[in-house]
């Protein structure tokens, strides 16, 4: 019965076929046939500096957002994993609560926070630090801030999952062998937690590459990301060009993650020691 054990996968397979394989194939077809085989859409993308600039911007913003999340999320995960086991579910719950709200709602919330009449401006004026409201919205800072805040829980949870795999006995062993807390962290915990950290960075990078709501609502004109361009082209029913850009987005994401794996691969170790 060669297919027996895989039988339960059939619904998932059908779903993947209908919702991913078929649309992906259609997309490739849209990008390459107009109506005959043509590279005109890709040519358009790669010969205009505007588009290349947006691609570059998308890569940089995604990398920066992923790095910000790492900088904030890794220490948070570190804190949670060192709490007594009974407290951890509550803390993780608090980390995840924001994800109950849609990205759209959370982006509007940032408009409320950063707007001219917003909380931050109110506080600044109340403290007498500024006389007039300052413009905090519609720039790159706002975009980075909001994206990082929206994606942070993903980083915390991914890092945390990696850290729980680390046997606390290893850190104790390092301590009893003469390593102070910092050196035990540096030589034992950190290297073993990198796998989770790099996974978290990669996931956030992937998610960021597709972001378009945040830059559209609270970014400036120069904060357009590839996702926004695609949405725009779809709105104008330029299917061919939209499809070509989607393929570029996919290829760029895969290429950068490959690079990350290549560089980080040398430093990543699985925390799981095979049991005898």
């Amino acid at each position, binding site marked *: 019965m060669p297919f027996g054990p895989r039988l339960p996968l059939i619904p998932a397979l059908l779903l993947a076929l209908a919702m991913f394989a078929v649309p992906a194939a259609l997309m490739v077809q849209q990008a390459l046939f107009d109506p005959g085989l043509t590279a005109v859409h890709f040519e358009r993308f790669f010969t205009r500096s505007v588009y290349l600039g947006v691609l570059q911007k998308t890569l940089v913003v995604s990398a920066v957002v992923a790095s910000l999340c790492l900088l904030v999320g890794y220490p948070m995960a570190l804190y949670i994993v060192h709490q007594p086991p009974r407290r951890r579910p509550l803390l993780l719950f608090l980390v995840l609560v924001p994800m109950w709200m849609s990205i759209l709602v959370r982006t509007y919330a940032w408009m409320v926070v950063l707007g001219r009449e917003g909380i931050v401006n109110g506080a600044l004026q109340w403290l007498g630090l500024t006389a007039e409201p300052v413009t905090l919205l519609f720039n790159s800072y706002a975009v980075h801030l909001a994206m990082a805040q929206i994606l942070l829980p993903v980083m915390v949870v991914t890092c945390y999952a990696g850290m729980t795999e680390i046997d606390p*006995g*290893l850190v104790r062993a390092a*301590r*009893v*062998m*003469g*390593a102070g807390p910092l050196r035990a962290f540096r*030589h034992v915990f950190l290297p073993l937690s990198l796998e989770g950290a790099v996974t978290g960075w990669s996931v956030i990078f992937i998610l960021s590459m597709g972001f378009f709501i945040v830059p559209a609502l609270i970014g400036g004109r120069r904060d357009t990301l590839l996702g926004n361009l695609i949405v725009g082209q779809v709105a104008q029913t330029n299917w061919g060009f939209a499809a070509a850009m989607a393929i570029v987005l996919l290829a760029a994401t895969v290429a950068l993650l490959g690079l990350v794996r290549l560089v980080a691969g040398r430093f990543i170790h699985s925390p799981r*020691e095979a049991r*005898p």
Partner: protein
Amino acid sequence: MSEASAPVRFENVTRRFGQVVALEDFSLAVAPGEFVTLLGPSGSGKTTALNILAGFDHADAGAVFIGERAVGGLPPEKRNVGMVFQNFALFPHMSVFDNVAFPLRMRGVDKARRARRVTEALAMVRLADYAERRPNALSGGQRQRVALARAVVAEPPVLLMDECLSALDLKLREELQQEIRRLHRVLGTTVVFVTHDQGEALSLSDRVAVMESGRVRQVDTPGALYDRPASRFVADFVGRTNIVEAPAGAPGTFADIDLALDDRRVRAVSLRPEKLRRTPRDGDRRFEARVEDVTFLGAAVESRLVTRSGAVLRLSETRAGTLPPPERGQTVEIGYAPGDAVPLFD
């Protein structure tokens, strides 16, 4: 590093976890170079004692000394002890060499001396050819030998081992026991060993501290512990034994086994199964019993005996003996030297 071995002392250490008393008024003195085992059932506080000694935990009351120094306020890295863990605790991201080099690196030993000492330590546990491997490319026994090498490489004066053999199967365990004895002989380090396996405790240690619910019940050499258990708990926990109870109204009298003791406080006696014999000698106490069951155990044969009043005793005989093994249902005459009946007062 400094000295080859140091004394270790627990003085009236108490440790509580909420309602649970893990250690209560725990005192123990280990001489320099001595091999002492903490033996006790699960939950008796062995790990807690070792953790307090290593600096992973603290005493709520009392003091712990390594050398002449009270170490209560010292973090683990300042205590200069070596430790071997039950689950090996090898660093999975480092080679065998780097694992063993770790304590030296943390002590600032330079690279050349480090390499020499690691090579020596690996040779000592017969793993010289495995230096470049990753721990997960080793078998369980090899891993624990790496852990041993790592624990002793910096020559700490005190070595701690917590159930470090219980993850291994019987054969490997015996092999590693030999290894540990040899290391202890060669290095002369003070060893505090933890196990709940009484056989392991008896065969490895200079002295054994038997623990029960956070207290030391008896500290003695393996021989004394086996021959003169101070309590019912120790008699029962160390080795196999028969406990014969005195009737409620008549302490000190054991009509069943033809024994009467002058001391009226004796509530029971312990009689080791191998001290009973079917060929009574002069001066032996004698009694009759029926053979209920006979079990073949390889080198020995064990029989279950029932006395006149229904008490069950085990008899263990080596197969090198002159008599053929007893038969089920047979009634036999059993003798034993009166001195082999150890009085128990609790």
